[in-house]
């Protein structure tokens, strides 16, 4: 993460959209819950670690908004980087300073990190807010109210901080993947907003297609799109279809940018 890109992100007005969406998601997560002091003697305890948006917030409005808004959060800040540079001819100045392959690689990596960061931001803020209301009980099999389908659930009972660290890394990487695909769409079609909504539309279409195919053929195909791979920490079925789709979403931008950095024609 270089300083030049940091300044670029935080000088733009779009960063305020991200902060506003973070506020909206957290407002709707808290507005549907009662936040009185937790009960002491019930079986399932109200802890910050099981009451936040990822676990008990599933199915509430805040979580529902997050599943859609994360595509905007991931890609609105920096994913029109190359297309904007090409439009303002700033890329000509950049390319006098460094090689094109380095320029593209920097753009890809910085966009990945910024995308992951802003996808993760609402979740981290949410967990911090819950930590201010709920105690950090010692959670075990009995009082956490989870089930075995939670990914990393074996770590949850041993080290809860490691569990949240892993979950955050997962969300960060998925946010980065979404942002990279948005960068690819914006660069290819020379637009500054197509990628923001385009990845969401592609993801929804793919999920619908899979469910249509599975209902036509009569075989149930278990499939998770980018949406549920990012947010869902339960019932993620990482089978061949899901991993194939994820690999396609990762490698299309990479292949495109490798070829893009070898083109010499647009200066």
């Amino acid at each position: 993460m270089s300083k030049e890109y940091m300044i670029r992100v935080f000088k733009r007005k779009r960063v305020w959209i991200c902060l506003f969406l973070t506020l909206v998601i957290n407002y709707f997560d808290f507005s549907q819950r009662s936040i009185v002091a937790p009960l002491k003697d019930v079986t399932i305890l109200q802890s910050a670690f099981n009451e936040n948006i990822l676990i008990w917030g599933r199915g509430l409005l805040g979580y529902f908004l997050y599943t859609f808004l994360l595509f905007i959060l991931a890609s609105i800040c920096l994913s029109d980087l190359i297309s904007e540079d090409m439009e303002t001819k700033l890329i000509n100045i950049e390319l006098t300073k460094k090689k094109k392959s380095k320029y593209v690689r920097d753009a890809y990596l910085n966009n990945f990190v910024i995308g992951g960061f802003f996808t993760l931001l609402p979740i981290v803020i949410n967990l911090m807010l819950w930590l201010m209301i709920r105690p950090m009980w010692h959670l075990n099999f009995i009082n956490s109210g989870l089930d075995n389908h939670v990914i990393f659930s074996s770590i949850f009972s041993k080290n809860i901080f490691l569990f949240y660290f892993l979950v955050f890394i997962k969300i960060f990487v998925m946010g980065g993947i979404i942002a990279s695909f948005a960068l690819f769409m914006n660069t290819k079609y020379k637009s500054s907003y197509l990628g923001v909504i385009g990845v969401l539309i592609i993801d929804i279409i793919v999920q619908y297609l899979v469910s249509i195919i599975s209902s036509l053929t009569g075989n149930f195909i278990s499939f998770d799109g980018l949406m549920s791979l990012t947010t869902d920490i339960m019932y993620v079925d990482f089978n061949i279809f899901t991993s194939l789709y994820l690999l396609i979403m990762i490698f299309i931008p990479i292949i495109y940018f490798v070829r893009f950095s070898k083109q010499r024609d647009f200066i």
Partner: protein
Amino acid sequence: MKKIIKFLIVALLLGFIFRVYSLNKTYPKDEKIKEYQLNEPITYKNIQIKVSGFKLNDLRGKDDPRILDVYFDVKNFTDKEISLYDVPNSFVLYQNFSNSVIQNTIEEGIPSDYKISYKKEDMVLKAKEEKKFTFKYMVEDYDMNRKNFLYINNNLYKDQYMDYFDKGYLFYEIINLGDIYE
């Protein structure tokens, strides 16, 4: 402007740390688990409970959950009637996080799927009475790494629970079932 933002962020973080610290001071951070084995009598103020065994019924297909019969001996010490019905979810079967409540108690008007099932009046123990129950639980598919145990609801030992709570512990009593798939 930059300095003000930096100052605000640091102030917010300090406030957050102080709030989390002061909130967690009064709550327990550790746990104490008392583990009973099979056939070990568990004595409370007015009842005694013993789990004498269990049997796995592979009634349905492979993908469906199976049924585990657990045999309970419950004894009433006192001269008064005691109803197990008053303790909701008195014994819950856990397999790591997944859990199952007793399947064969019947609410009024709802037919039961099981041959042995208990109505509200069947769960009452008369004075000095000893009764045997067979409670049925749903079991998940085989997984060696899971810990299978029955959790005894803390309503049955609430005084002890609150004592330990004040000392900084969460107190639970469980009956370890070991490998239920044998």
